[in-house]
């Protein structure tokens, strides 16, 4: 009914609703993906590339604030280092980050199982 209503108000509204929901859905997943990727040390660009290669594209404006937030929460540690004659900021998971990631992955598995069950029932 909602979809019908919004469609009657134009497909632009439908697209907007979808984009907002997609953004909400992606937000938590991105954090999990970034933390998982940073089990091995990477700098911003290689992290972005690795995520994109796995089908999870993320722009600069989203990734760098996320990295800073995770670092300020103590989940990541970073270090400026020279590589190929250029200064790069390398990130990796902190010990606290590793613990939190394990808990988050457990939660993710639980949600995934529940969702699969719900989808099968539907």
């Amino acid at each position, binding site marked *: *009914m*909602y979809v*019908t*209503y*919004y469609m*009657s108000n134009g497909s632009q509204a439908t697209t907007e609703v979808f984009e907002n929901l997609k953004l909400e859905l992606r937000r938590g997943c991105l954090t999990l993906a970034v933390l998982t990727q940073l089990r091995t040390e990477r*700098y*911003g*660009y*290689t992290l*972005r*590339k690795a995520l994109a290669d796995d089908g999870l594209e993320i*722009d*600069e*404006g*989203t990734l*760098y*604030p996320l990295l*800073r937030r995770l670092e300020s929460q103590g989940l990541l540690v970073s270090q*400026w280092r020279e590589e190929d004659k*250029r*200064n*790069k*900021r390398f990130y990796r998971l902190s010990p606290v980050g590793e613990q939190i990631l394990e808990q988050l992955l457990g939660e993710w598995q639980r949600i995934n199982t529940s969702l699969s069950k719900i989808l099968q029932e539907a």
Partner: protein
Amino acid sequence: MSTSSSRNPLELVDRYLQAVRFWLPKTGRQEDLLAELGEDLRSQIEDKESELGHALGKDEISEILKRCGAPMLVASRLGPRRHLIGPGLYPIYEFVLKMVLLWILVPVFIFIVGPATLASTNGDWGKTALVTLGNLWSGAFVAAGIITLVFAILERTHAIADINCKWDPSSLPPLQKPERKTSFVQTICELAFNVFGLVWLLLVPNHPFLIMGPAAAFLKLGTIWHTFYVPVVLLTVAVIVRLAVTLARSQWTAFPLWSQLLQTAVSLILVHYMIQAAGYTVHGDWHPFVTIADGLSRSEQYVRFTKIAAIVNVALLISLVCTWVGLCIGGAVQVWELLKHIRKQGTVSQQPASVQLR
């Protein structure tokens, strides 16, 4: 500048970062963020160069920068999330703003500042309207500014941060009673009363005892009624028509609200002019509403009749002023009811079809 860019296309990246720097808040993290963004862009360029096997030109670098986004947008995404009033305080801010502007400032200007201005401009309505609206605009502007400033300070200082911890479910307001519709019986009673009132009004000129009782022997209606009798009768007829339409078209939910408001506005204007007219008849004896009946000027009781006429006139003037105040309050309440109705209708029409169908 474009010549140097074509000689060194990478200079575009520096110009881009300079533009982003302009929009980024000047914090300790600014250089850090820019260095990281610059590194990302250079890595992208490097990757593209190794993929194509040649150094990128200005257009290809422009393409990468375009994909990254306009400097102002990139800065807004990279920088800390900033807002003057956050989502936690915003509903309270909106509520206070509405209360102050709509329910304090506007009534104050209509009922206090407006009449005061009217008195100072010697009854010039046009000038009064202009001056009052001008003052209302600047007053609203200043009030909104001050409220915004106060809430911005509250936001900054996290003064109401613990609001979530302090609230108590038992302090929640009681459930609102469902909106009361004007009952059929009430409308019928109002209609009957107004029809009776109209008949009474039509009989009064020929039978003054209907309004003055035994005092009709020595009092008669004053000159003011010659001017206002017909408008009062017309208003009563209009009220009867309004009530009849309300009865006949009960599905018109907005009609009773706005027609009653219109009735109040017309009554307000009428009462206002009656009070004003009563004030103008100051020459000689002040007998605007009732005066001594003809042929009693030589009566022994003339002085006593004059005193009674004066008391009745003052009493009528006071009751008219009270009516004016009552109409103002009634009008404000009716405006509120009408706005509530409009908002409710708006909410209903905005609800999804699924909800409306229920």
